[in-house]
Structure formats: C-alpha cells, structure tokens
C-alpha cells in the first residue's frame, strides 16, 4: 500500500531533510546565481534554512500551519533579498488553509502549493514565463490539485516532475522581473 500521508513528526523530518539539503546545495545555488545574478543565492538560502532547521528542532511539532509558518518566518527574516521574501511568502502563504491539520496528505500538498503560489504572485507580480520560481511552482500546484485523490506517495513524484519540467522550460526564457 502506498503511503497516504505523513504524520506531524514525519512532516518535521521531511522539512528537516529539506533544510539540510538546501544547506548542502549552497555552492550549487551560488554557482547558478553567478550565471544570471550576483552569485549570492546559495549564501542566503543556506543561512535561511539553517535558521529554519534550528527553529524546527527547537519547538514541539503541533500542526501543519505552525510548521510551515515557522519555516516561512525563518526564511523571511534570515535569507534577505528577493529570495527571502518570495520563499518566506511561499511557506507562510501556503499555510493559509492548513490550520489545525495534522496529516500532510495530497490535499494538504495541493493546498500548500496553490495558496503559496497565489501569495508569491501577489507579492512579486510574476507571471508564468517571467523566468521566476512561479514557472516551477505553478505547474506543480496544478498537478497537485489534479492528484488530490491519490496517496501522497504516488502524487508527490508526479508533482515534483511537473516542477522539474517547469524549471527546465525557464532555460529558454528571458528574465523580466527582479
């Protein structure tokens, strides 16, 4: 049987895994940024996810909205620049309809991605095709919405693939914002 959802404790573990992964990707992110920006993206993101990690480790797991708010505030207040604002807004905005929820299932994933996408677009005014995170986030949110009836374990790889394909499409785009 495919796993239908993550418990709160497992969701914390997932987020911690993400925090560690982002810190480990510091040089990769900076290298990518150097090609298109000033090369400081990895530094800020590593700093932000380090703070997020310590906040997550330092508080008891409660509900999904608290977890995502915690990560969002950590990013918003420690990454800086445009990245801190949009990633913080994504996590915080995505928590909008997760109050009290304790199961991270496909519906929670879709809720987080769609509300987060809306919040990011309101904040940064970016549309699909502007060569921003919206190009990966929007197809992922759409795919997640279409797969809410699947177990999380089956939905997640498809959602990730949609995001990856969205990211690949940005390679031919010209940046217009930020």
């Amino acid at each position: 049987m495919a796993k239908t959802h993550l418990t709160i404790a497992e969701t914390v573990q997932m987020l911690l895994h993400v925090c560690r992964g982002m810190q480990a990707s510091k040089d990769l992110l900076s290298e990518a940024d150097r090609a298109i920006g000033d090369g400081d993206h990895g530094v800020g993101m590593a700093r932000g996810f380090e703070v997020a990690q310590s906040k997550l480790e330092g508080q008891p797991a409660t509900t999904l909205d608290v977890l995502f708010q915690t990560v969002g505030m950590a990013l918003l207040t420690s990454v800086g620049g445009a990245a801190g604002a949009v990633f913080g807004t994504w996590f915080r905005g995505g928590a909008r309809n997760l109050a009290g929820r304790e199961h991270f299932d496909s519906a929670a994933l879709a809720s987080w991605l769609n509300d987060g996408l809306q919040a990011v677009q309101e904040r940064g005014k970016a549309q699909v095709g502007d060569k921003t995170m919206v190009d990966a986030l929007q197809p992922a949110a759409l795919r997640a919405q279409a797969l809410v009836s699947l177990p999380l374990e089956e939905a997640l790889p498809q959602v990730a693939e949609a995001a990856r394909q969205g990211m690949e499409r940005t390679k031919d785009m010209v940046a217009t914002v930020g």
Partner: protein
Amino acid sequence: MKAKKIINDPRNVVTELLEGLVWAYHGRIRKLEGVNALVKTELPPGKVGLLIGGGSGHEPLFHGFIGENMADGAACGNIFAAPTPDVILAATRALDQGKGVLYLYGNYAGDNMNFDIAAEMAAEEGIATRTVRIWDDVASAPPERVDERRGIAGDLFVIKVAGAAAATLDSLDEVYRVTAKARDRVRSMGVAVSAGSLPETGEPTFTLGPDEIEIGMGLHGEAGVSREKLLPADALVDKMMQRILADLPFRRGDEVCLLINDLGATTMMELLIVNRRVRQILEQEGIGVYDTIIGSFCTSQEMAGFSISLMQLDDELKHYYDMPARSFGYTRA
C-alpha cells in the same frame, strides 16, 4: 581569482562594518538590539521619519547617509541583499513619532517586496508609511517603463532632498510629494570596467574581458546597454551623457546638480577627467551646473567604473538641496 579583502570571518562583515560605522558617528547613531538597523540617537520630537535602506556592501550608501537633515535611520541587508521585513519594521517602530515614516530605497525586486511586507506589518500596528522607490538608472529600462528601472547613485540626491524635507515639513504626504518630485527629476547612468567581489565567496560578481567595458551595467553586474572595447574617457562620457540628457529630457536653460560617483575602485584622477568632459557637454548644451559632487557614494565593493547623475532643479528642490546636511558619507555646509 579570489579577491584580497581586509576582513575577518566573511559571515561577520555586515555586523562588523555596522559596528565600525556606529563608532565613526561618535554617538549620533545607534544600532537597534538584535537587528541590523541603525537610527539617530536623538530624533526631534514629532518629526516625520525618513527610513532608507538596502543591501550592504555599497558604502557609504545607505547607512552612511543617516544624519542631520538626512535620513533618520537605515535598514541594512546582508551584502547586496535587501534587508528583511523584521529589520525594516524594527527601524520603523523606532522612527515613528505619530507622523508616520517615509520609506526611501532603490527599486529592486527584493527591496520592494521586503519593504512592502514591512509596510503591511507596520499598518497592522497603526504606523503610517509611504514609499518612494528610486529609479534613476536610464540604462535599465526604457522611459515608458521607468518604474522598472534600478536605483543607483542618484539615490544620494533624492536622500539629500528627502532628508531636508522630512526635517522641515509636518506631514508624511508632503514629505512624500517633495521626495517623489526629486526622484522624478534625477537621471543616472554607469559604466563598469571590472567587477567587484562578494566577501562571502571572494568570487567576482561578473566577468569582463581585459579590454572590455559594459555601458549601463548595474551595481550588481546586471546587464547594461552594450558591451564594448575600452574607450577613451571623452568618447565614453559622450555616449553616457547623450542618453542621460535625452531621457528626462534636460533642456537648454535647465539648472542641475551633478554627481560623478566612483563605483569602488576608480581613482579621483579618472573622475576628474570625466568631470571635465561632462562640463564641456553641459556648457555646450546650455545647461547650468548649480553644484558638483565627485567621489565614492554608491559603490559595489572593488568594482571599477563610475556613474554620472543629474538632478534637474526648480526653486523648491533648490531650497531643500541648499539646507545644510551632515552625515558620514555626505555633508553640505
């Protein structure tokens, strides 16, 4: 090749440079507890607050422009990165005396979003804010999309006028009006001949060939209007001035303030050679120069290059421009 820098732990550069700046102010500014925000130690009661800010690493911009008839405080980001909303909010609280706070900063996506988030948080606490984004860089977008342009060294003129306005005008709306007017009359353009580097990594923020320059390049290495072979100073200045003058446009009979700004590693010798040509052109165009500022005001680490900024004056702007000002990075007697 990694840059040589006189720093300690690269992660501490912002904290340490702000500590050094506080010392340089001899008690006239203080750092807020727990955040990288600096504010004047003594604020005249009942004054409209003027908060500036942006990424660090461009010193003396922004935090070096706190002072008498200048900014009341600055929210300081990490190197080349916008300050975070909690820092901006803390500074806003410290500056608000019931009259509200004007946010004044360069027009970059990160700054816009972080200041907007802070403005929403301030509004929830009952603190009024208004925002002027500086967009003086003519090379960064065409005139019909002026609100997509970046803020560069012209920041100094706008902060100068805003500081004087905020020191004398009683309402946030009036300070906003004068500041926006100054912003709308400033035009700048820069050229980079070699890159600066990030203290955290030591890596240059972009690469130019040995004899290449980029005309109109942004403070962080953002693309400009053209990449060319190194030109003699006069030919380079001619290209830049042509674009700046046509943009507002500046006209015969105008009176302007002129700023020739070093981006970090260009010598005073070169800036003066630039100034010579700028004045020849302005003379020829029949544009009067009311005041000239030459030096390092808006830098990008050891980036070599310079920018030219002009502010078109009217009686009102001249009044505020003429008020004395005192700050670490800029003083007018």
